[in-house]
């Protein structure tokens, strides 16, 4: 699992590659740390190369959302494949995030 944080057009973009499962979640949590310092930047989770997400991964996404929302930032999810979209729909998470 590889996570890269970029700044693009004033937005913080987290690019995920691989499987975000329980084993990868500790490392990914560390990689997402810079997103917690966002001050009004919108955040984009680029999931184009994300193959799988577990509950631990969903919790990480939520944690970033919970931190960003009170600061007025939006958290967008982009590029999710059909399987991931189903996971988001089955858990009701589609109602929590904004999709691009």
């Amino acid at each position, binding site marked *: 699992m590889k996570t890269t944080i970029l700044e693009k057009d004033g937005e913080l973009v987290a690019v995920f590659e691989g499987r975000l499962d329980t084993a990868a979640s500790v490392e990914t949590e560390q990689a997402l740390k810079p997103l917690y310092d966002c001050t009004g930047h919108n955040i984009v989770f680029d999931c184009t190369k994300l193959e799988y997400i*577990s*509950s631990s991964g*969903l*919790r990480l996404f*939520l944690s970033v959302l919970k931190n960003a929302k009170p600061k007025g930032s939006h958290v967008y999810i982009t590029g999710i494949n*059909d399987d991931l*979209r*189903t*996971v988001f*729909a*089955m*858990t*009701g*998470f*589609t*109602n*929590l995030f904004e*999709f691009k």
Partner: protein
Amino acid sequence: MIPKLNPHGEALLEQYREQLPLLEQLSETVYNQLRQVFHEQAVELSAIECRVKTESSLAGKLERKGDKYASLEDITDLVGLRIITFYTDDVDKVAAIVQQLYEIDWSNSVDKRKLHELTSFGYNSLHYICRLKGGKMPFEIQMRTALQHVWSAIEHDIGYKGAVKLPPEYRRQFSRLAGMLELADDEFSRLRTTMTDYRRQVQALVKSGKLDEVLLSTDSFRSYLELRPFQRLNQRIAAVNQAEIFPASLLPFLSVLESFGLETLGDVQRFIDENSDNAYQLSLSQLAVTDLDILSESIGLQNLCLAYVLKNGGGVGGLKNIYDLLYGEHDKNEMLAEMMYEQASQLPFVKK
């Protein structure tokens, strides 16, 4: 450009330059105090503005009427703040709070709202000249509604009070508009009171269980949600994987419930009672084969809506309609609807 002043005016202007940092500090102090107290008292405002008079503006004033002021403290609007409320009732409330916070110089304060002739219209605000308790330097606080603010801005822009006197037909046009705005301000206040009463009535009806008497609306649905009507279903679904439930807003589902033709909270209650088992079966079929142990609070209501459509033969089109209403129309909604339909198609309650 700074005009040429007499020696007294020049002396006052020099004092102003020396005191400018203190004036700016005073402006900031009062601004922050007001913001904090209105936040604490939950007074919703359109805006609070503050400014320190600029040197050129002060020089202009001193050129026109400099002899009137013996010292800088006699110029009461060097620091000015403006509190803009949404409703007329709130102007008085804001004024009462300002009276508590500061010493008011009543001899120089004006309620311009009361200055109009009975037979004419006009539109102005409440001006208080204040001092910090024990403070020396005065500052002015203007309080007005958003509509009064718009009126003042347009009046200033058009130059209604300028040197050129407007012909009577234009003055009459101004008066008519002022009257209309005054009436609109009063009506907005009245509407707020009516809406507050309505919300209280709805809350009382919801609490007493008379749900058939309450029409479905944003307000009534919000009150209904306080009863946590989806909690039992959510807990049942969460038990499938011992999942944690994450709070979520359920208000976006109102449009979906309305699209099903539900008109009262009683209809919503029956909708829950009649579809909960099917919503649970749907959730079970989806979640039992996963280890997903975190769910959004919207899961129960979401699956109630999906189950209702599936049970009534709405098929992929009906599911897509739900997603369109929740997330806006999007190509992906059809794909999601197809996947959900495929997953659910073997469930016994699904009408094909």
